[in-house]
């Protein structure tokens, strides 16, 4: 390889490093993606220069076809379907690695008819295994996510035993592949097994855990690229591959942590349902949870916030930390107000006493009648330990004991974040269907403790 190409690879590698670095920072993420794309282009062009001009037509064809398909789907896909799309793309990446490894294997065994040395052989086998698992695993994840197969974990007896058996078989056959390099049967078996393992490993995992799985498979496809790098003795593949491999593992761990799960727990499968409202009678309300970090991001990007305090704020004594939240938001020029329901709390003026204690000036406290029309223009309504006073049943359900009570139109806001400890009921003892609304996110935990964390995150962001 010529020096100039090596240099191009070096620069590409640097661009990948910078790309990943920036992708982790909200502000620079797009620039990061750009940088790594430029790196990729550089690597491709440099490679092309080095190659046989005669094979250029078919290469171009492949590039155009692949590029076209990729671009088409990237453009067409709806925002909500992006995770599945990423899964599929990732699968293709894995399959490509497998393809390159096989190609090299057959090139050496059939055309060049040379002996494949140990390093190469190990690399090829690793590439096949990881590439295969990535491919079928990603495809299963993709199908689970877009509903082509059920999102429920599929488990059966002896699953773990089967996986173990397959892995042992793989290792045995791998040795034969190395010893009898000319016989294509062995390598074919390896391919089949890896594809099978990919399926078996992912089906027992529930739909809700798929993002973690995809992140893990993404890390794998990086490792597959690294293995390919060893096959081709190519630095840029190794750098890029191991960057992705390592950062993918970390990202996976971060995602698990954000879900309060361990990686093991995810991988052993059978989990990953959507949270429901526990074992209560009546129609179960399915809610979406939000973590403190994400809640902080939501506040960070809002331009108006209304806090709806309730009895839970008093119980948690969260008024002081809410003032801190206010200070953080106001530093960002976010409009921040309080909507005081006339019967929030357990005595008239309960919220007033506490918010005054926290030194929140009176002009931030808005009466229900005055603020009720503003909710629909508000980015975030933050319901802190309130329940009955934002229960839409008061408007809609004549059977409800609170029917006819005027309530705060919190549900009309773009996003509702509810801070409470559990799905516990309020004073009136009734379910609140607001919590299941599509624009509603539950921030579970004692209000003071969780909001303290949210404020901590916000401080770090600035």
């Amino acid at each position, binding site marked *: 390889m010529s020096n100039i190409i090596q240099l191009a690879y070096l620069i590409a590698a640097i661009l990948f490093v910078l790309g990943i670095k920036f992708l982790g920072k909200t502000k620079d993420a797009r620039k990061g993606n750009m940088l790594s794309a430029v790196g990729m282009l550089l690597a491709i062009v440099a490679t092309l220069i080095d190659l046989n001009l005669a094979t250029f037509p078919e290469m171009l064809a492949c590039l155009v076809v692949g590029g076209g398909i990729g671009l088409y789907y990237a453009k067409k896909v709806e925002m909500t379907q992006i995770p599945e799309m990423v899964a599929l793309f990732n699968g293709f990446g894995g399959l490509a690695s497998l393809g390159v490894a096989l190609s090299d294997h057959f090139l050496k065994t059939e055309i060049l008819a040379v002996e494949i040395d140990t390093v190469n052989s190990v690399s090829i086998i690793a590439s096949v295994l990881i590439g295969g698992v990535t491919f079928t695993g990603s495809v299963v994840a993709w199908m689970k996510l877009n509903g082509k197969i059920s999102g429920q974990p599929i488990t059966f007896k002896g699953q773990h035993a089967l996986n173990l058996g397959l892995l042992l078989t793989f290792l045995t056959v791998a040795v034969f592949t190395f010893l009898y390099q000319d016989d294509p049967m062995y390598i074919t078996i390896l391919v089949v097994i890896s594809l099978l393992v990919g399926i078996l490993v992912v089906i027992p995992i529930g739909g809700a855990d798929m993002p973690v799985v995809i992140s893990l498979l993404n890390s794998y496809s990086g490792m597959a690229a690294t293995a390919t790098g060893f096959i081709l003795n190519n630095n840029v593949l190794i750098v890029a591959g191991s960057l992705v491999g390592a950062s993918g593992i970390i990202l996976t761990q971060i995602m698990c942590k954000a879900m309060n799960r361990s990686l093991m727990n995810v991988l052993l499968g059978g989990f990953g349902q959507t949270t429901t409202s526990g074992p209560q009678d009546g129609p179960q309300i399915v809610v979406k949870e939000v973590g403190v970090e994400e809640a902080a991001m939501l506040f960070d990007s809002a331009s108006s916030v209304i806090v709806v305090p309730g*009895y839970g704020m*008093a*119980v948690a*004594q969260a008024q002081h930390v809410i003032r801190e939240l206010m200070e953080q938001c106001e530093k960002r020029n976010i409009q921040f107000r309080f909507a005081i329901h*006339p*019967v929030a*709390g*357990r*005595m*008239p*003026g*309960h919220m007033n*006493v*506490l918010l*005054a*204690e926290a030194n929140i000036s009176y002009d931030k406290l808005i009466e229900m009648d005055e603020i009720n029309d503003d909710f629909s223009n508000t980015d975030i309504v933050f319901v802190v330990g309130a329940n*009955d006073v934002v229960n839409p049943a*008061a408007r809609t359900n004549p059977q409800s*004991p*609170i*029917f*006819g*009570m005027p309530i705060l139109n919190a549900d009309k806001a773009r996003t509702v974040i509810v801070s409470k400890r559990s799905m516990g009921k309020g004073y*009136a003892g009734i379910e609140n269907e607001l919590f299941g609304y599509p624009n509603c996110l539950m921030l579970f935990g004692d209000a003071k403790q969780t909001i303290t964390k949210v404020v901590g995150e916000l401080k770090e962001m600035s």
Partner: protein
Amino acid sequence: MKVGVLKETKDYELRVALSPDVVKLLKKKEFDVVIESGAGDGSYFSDSDYEQAGALVGPASAVFESDILLKVNPFTVEEIGQMKENAACISYMYAYQFPEMIEALNKKSISSFSMDAVPRISRAQKMDALSSQANLAGYKAVLLGANHLGKIFPLMMTASGTITPAKVLIFGAGVAGLQAIATAKRLGALVEVTDVRPETKEQVESLGGRFLTVEGAEGVKIEGGYAKEVSAEFLEKQQQLIREKIKEADLVITTALVMGKKSPILVTEDMVKSMKTGSVIIDMAVESGGNCELSEKNKTVVKHGVTLVGESNLPSLLPVNASNLYAVNISTLLLHLANRDGFQLDMEEEITKGVLITHRGELVHPFTKSILSK
């Protein structure tokens, strides 16, 4: 429909049933409103304020011509005598205490609605005068107490020595009790609270008070949020706990009521004796018999060195707020029951059922009946 408001005649009563703001609201709903001249004086609402709001201001006789009469305190038999046949009236009634009033009403076939019988359901919160007035009373009780006390409430470390914070002991964490906690805390006192309903513990603590838990709290019957009846055993244990705490208290506020009954005695003469000279007791239950053995209704007396305040009408000491809130309560109930064309009673509806005492010459209110028939 013509709505009439009489001037209150009870001693020390400064409230009035409608405020000028609410008169405006009723006019918008096309009610006619007549106010007795001078009715609003105690609350600093002048006759001209009412006139500007659209009411007619006239002598009592003009008011008695109305279809619906409004008051804060129960109508007297004499007042009822001056009403039109088949008219209606709304006020506090405490009907189970006044059989002669019921008789008078029935004689004239007057439909009467009682503000103290508004059911305590979410929907009716805007009509709940008991809560709105108790809330103000809770605030006022603390201020009265602080004013009678020879010390200040907050801790203060000064060059001339440290003033220790006052200790306030509150009996009953209902609406009034909670507001009293909040107010005393604000002023910097240490607040301890006792109540028979265990769920009040959390509420007390949410306001920064310390809840005195009575061990072995069985025997408390709760009905619709009210403490219904308390077992003798519980009361005794509670007293024992209190006996310790009350010795150190500077201010004691008692708010314990039991609906339809004489209020429980929580502070005995012995306990008063054990208190520090100069300490103060505000007995908010004095109207229904008092929580303290020694307190006297509408009097402030000093016994065993302790000042006992028996103010029976605390909300009236905050007439502006009290009248404003009461006016909202009573008008909300009125608008629930009637429109410009007259009453539209749905006898099955919970609020109507709850507040209607006499109708078409008969006592129809079950709870009142049950008490009076005893």
